[in-house]
């Protein structure tokens, strides 16, 4: 009897669950009050859902209340599914839309498209294609072409997704943890080149002003977290003057972390603001002038390693699509005066967002709804070479998904990136994630053996050798350190000039932080760099980095202690070069000589000794003559530029004053040098 009763219940339930249940008294004769509450919730939800400025999150809350009362209503399930599609929890839309469709396949003309989209987002790509196709077949009346195109785009994205998922990229994706992420939204991370500082946007309750926007969420503020031994510190609100009562969001940070680009929505129009870190204080953000900002909406800004180009996104007129990437170039006066659309290789008829230029100055990451996106915005990579940008390459699944993957930034090493996403196991809403790129799968090597010689029992082994796997990494050197006073050890604000020694061109000029003395410069591979660190009343310090094109990523820490201009102070002129075993100055020496000339001009009381030194190779006599000749050549260059010979003294020390061992190539290289010493002031 019990079994029959259970069976009856199941049959009854199945029959009821398959039927659409309207919110009518006749369907709930014993729950009139609850029905009234549910209908009220739907009515209120509709006020958010059906208005021009839809607030899907608020509508969703109300609809879900009604759903608890009656889960079998076609329209309500449809609305919940639609709200979820427009929320941060898109994947949850599918069961509601499926139910709405099951209850009433004609619940809405858009149900087929939304089912396509919901399946698409849930990576059920074949199923999604079926619904997109059904949607196309169902279309009539107005907007057929536009809606067909929308479905076709969905189908194309599914096909792209199927291809991309065949070869997923190997990554670890890690939530940055509770020191950075909260139950509130965190997004648009930007990171310094060495990953020491991470700036994010968050909408937390401690938002400046503590007010809610029209969507009922706290206004955006900028927060910072620092990396201490691979652990991120608690994100701190940057406070004023960066943050204000309204939206202040991250857009970009310079590789050295000394310049921040902030989004503000002044006059209902998103614009780019920039500010500088002065000591430990951020300057008042100032709105970037035209032609960077325009009457249209600007979002996303990324500055090149030399500070001379700004990649940004704008919806200004004349673009190739919804929003496009532009490049602004700084003129010799330091003004941004030339803005150009980056062009159709990168910009598409769809949205193109989140431009991020790597510190190598040629690798651009951006997000696009076009190209071979697998849905929404996908992250792409393009490289500038030989005067043009390469065809954008989808960086692949699972970093890219059918949802919007945007505002992705990469560390200078090219091995880690940062982005925001809503994922299982997160702390709520959007969180900041770090993606570690593992590169191509590391091949496992097998060993086999065979009895090749019939008359011998001993097997002959063979290694099934896998080819060496190329590891992709940035061709970039990050030079960083702290500039201090050599005696007091106090941090100094110094000017750091980077020169292309071969072309005798200034590449960029930076300043170390006045409070910490910290500096960071990016040196893309393939150049001979002269680095000069200068500060008033100090002797300049020079470094030379000759980085071949084939060099991989490296971080070099070089602390610089600047010496006062005082008798006895001595520095090595690391960017003076001679032909091998000769006293002929190489052209690459010009910048260093000019720095020396400027010092002597600026401080006319200075008298210096130019000292030549050699390594231990060769005879003493030869080395003495060579070093003397070299020092005289430098003195001659300076006298020809107008420095009186009375202020200059040439001295060749040969190999008598080594500063390193002569037993190694590296040591010998250090010993071959030109120095100058202040002998009077």
């Amino acid at each position: 009897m019990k079994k029959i009763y259970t069976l009856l219940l199941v049959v009854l339930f199945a029959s009821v669950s398959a039927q659409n249940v309207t919110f009518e008294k006749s369907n709930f004769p014993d729950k009139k009050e609850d029905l009234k509450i549910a209908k009220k919730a739907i009515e209120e939800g509709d006020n958010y859902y059906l208005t021009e400025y839809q607030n899907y999150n608020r509508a969703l809350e109300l609809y879900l209340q009604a759903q608890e009362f009656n889960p079998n209503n076609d329209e309500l399930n449809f609305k919940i599914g639609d709200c979820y599609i427009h929320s941060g929890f898109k994947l949850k839309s599918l069961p509601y839309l499926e139910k709405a469709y099951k209850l009433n396949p004609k619940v809405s003309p858009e149900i087929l498209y939304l089912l396509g989209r919901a399946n698409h987002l849930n990576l059920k790509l074949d199923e999604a294609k079926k619904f997109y196709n059904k949607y196309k077949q169902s279309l009539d009346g107005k907007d057929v072409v536009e809606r067909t195109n929308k479905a076709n785009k969905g189908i194309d994205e599914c096909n792209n997704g199927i291809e991309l998922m065949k070869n997923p990229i190997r990554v670890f994706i890690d939530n940055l943890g509770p020191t950075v992420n909260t139950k509130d939204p965190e997004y648009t991370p930007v990171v310094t080149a060495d990953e020491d500082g991470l700036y994010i946007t968050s909408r937390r309750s401690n938002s400046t002003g503590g007010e809610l926007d029209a969507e009922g969420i706290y206004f955006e503020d900028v927060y910072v977290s620092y990396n201490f031994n691979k652990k991120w510190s608690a994100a701190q609100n940057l406070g004023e003057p960066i943050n204000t009562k309204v939206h202040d969001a991250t857009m970009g940070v310079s590789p050295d972390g000394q310049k921040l680009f902030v989004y503000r929505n002044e006059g209902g129009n998103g614009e780019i603001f920039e500010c500088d870190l002065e000591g430990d204080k951020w300057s008042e953000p100032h709105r970037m002038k035209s032609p960077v900002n325009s009457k249209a909406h600007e979002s996303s800004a990324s500055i090149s390693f030399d500070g001379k180009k700004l990649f940004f996104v704008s919806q200004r007129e004349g673009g190739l699509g919804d929003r496009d990437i532009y490049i602004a170039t700084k003129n010799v006066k330091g003004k941004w005066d030339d803005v150009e659309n980056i062009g159709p290789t990168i910009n598409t008829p769809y949205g193109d967002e989140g431009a991020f230029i790597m510190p190598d100055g040629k690798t651009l990451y951006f997000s696009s709804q076009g190209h071979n996106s697998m849905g929404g915005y996908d992250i792409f990579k393009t490289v500038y070479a030989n005067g043009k940008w390469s065809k954008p390459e989808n960086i692949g699944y699972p970093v890219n998904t059918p949802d919007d993957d945007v505002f992705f930034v990469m560390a200078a090493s090219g091995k880690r990136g940062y982005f925001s996403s809503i994922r299982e196991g997160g702390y709520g809403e959007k969180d900041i994630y770090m993606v570690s790129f593992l590169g191509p799968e590391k091949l496992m090597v097998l060993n086999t053996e065979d009895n090749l010689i019939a008359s011998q029992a001993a097997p002959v082994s063979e290694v099934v050798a896998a080819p060496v796997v190329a590891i992709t990494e940035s061709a970039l050197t990050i030079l960083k350190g702290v500039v201090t006073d050599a005696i007091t050890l106090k941090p100094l604000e110094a000017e750091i000039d980077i020169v292309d020694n071969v072309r005798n061109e200034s590449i960029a000029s930076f300043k170390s932080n006045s409070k910490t003395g910290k500096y960071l410069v990016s040196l893309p591979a393939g150049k001979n760099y002269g680095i000069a660190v200068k500060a008033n009343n100090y002797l300049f310090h020079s470094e030379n980095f000759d980085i071949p094109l084939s060099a991989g990523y490296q971080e070099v820490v070089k602390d610089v202690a600047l010496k006062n201009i005082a008798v006895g102070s001595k520095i090595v002129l690391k960017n003076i070069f001679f032909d091998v075993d000769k006293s002929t100055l190489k052209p690459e020496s010009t910048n260093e000589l000019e720095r020396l000339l400027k010092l002597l001009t600026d401080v006319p009381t200075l008298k210096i000794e130019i000292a030549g030194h050699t390594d231990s190779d060769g005879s003493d006599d030869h080395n003495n003559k060579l070093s003397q000749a070299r020092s005289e050549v430098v003195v001659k260059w300076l006298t020809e530029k107008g420095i009186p010979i009375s202020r200059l003294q040439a001295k060749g020390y040969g190999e008598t004053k080594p500063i390193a061992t002569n037993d190694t190539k590296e040591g010998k290289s250090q010993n071959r040098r030109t120095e100058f010493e202040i002998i009077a002031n």
Partner: protein
Amino acid sequence: MKKLSFAIGFFAFAFCSVNAQTEQTDTVKAKIFDSNEAEKLYNSGVSNITSKNFDAAITDFNQAITIKPDFDKAYANRGLAKFEKKDFQGAIADYNKTIELNPNADNVNFNRAQARYALKDIDGALGDYNIDLQKNPNHAQAYYYRGCIKFDKVDYKGAIEDYTSAIAAKPDYAYAYNDRGSAKRQLEDIVGAMLDYDKATQLDAKMAFAWNNLGSAKRKKGQAKEAILDYTRAIQQKSDYYIAYNNRGSAKFDIGDYEGAIKDFTEALKIKPDYAYALNNRSAAKFKTKDYAGSVDDATAAIKLNPDYGYAYLNRGNSKEMLRDEMGSCSDWNKAATLGVANAKPYLSDCQ
């Protein structure tokens, strides 16, 4: 002269008997001189060789030689018996005596070559094969073994020439086909190798190693599925052929049948538990099935068996990386690199 020898022999025998008589007077029996006794002992020795009673054979030949010290054939066959007992030095001494007594004795250079080869006196062996082939230009085995020496000397072209001569002299020479296939394989003539291995299996379908080699040539040619069938034939011929299990597992690995590969490597390990290759390979297959912990365990076991097993370090490093053991993976890649594994070096760029 012959009579004189017999006389000397008889005299010596009588003298010995007298001496013996002074010690064991009660056991002396008169021995009747038999003019064919040495030959009879020799024949007995030959019979014992045939029935693999090598100790008895050596005793027979000893006696025959005692009776007839210039009995070259007895030396030659005693050499053979000693060879079979792996007394290669003793065998060579007997062959030397044979040649001394009869420089034209049949096969003696060939046999001495075999003994020298066994003692890794490769050049000595080669010289003997050359002499043998001068005497007998159609000696298939001499060509074959000289081919083996050339193979060992990495003179694969020379080996192929000798194997071809062996086959010309003996068209059903399955070993020669197998080995010529191997020489071709070493020269990357994989198609040629496959044809020769195939012929070898046709001539002798019981040669498990030839099936195995055929499978390996096909695998090298990218025909992993076909290779699996050949390895299976090898295993059918020799059920404890762990090498073929290991190879079949590797072929299954090639086609992405990682579970099947794990089963085969496991079978190889049942037969030979200390088979480091199978442990390393199973580690690789487990990596593919995302059983990274299992992969680390297997690679560790392989390293325990062979502490200088660079590829096992490499593989273990790869699995440790997936287990987020950054230090462990870097340490293993570094070790692999120091052991000469080129693949490991670029991985070290991921290590700080």
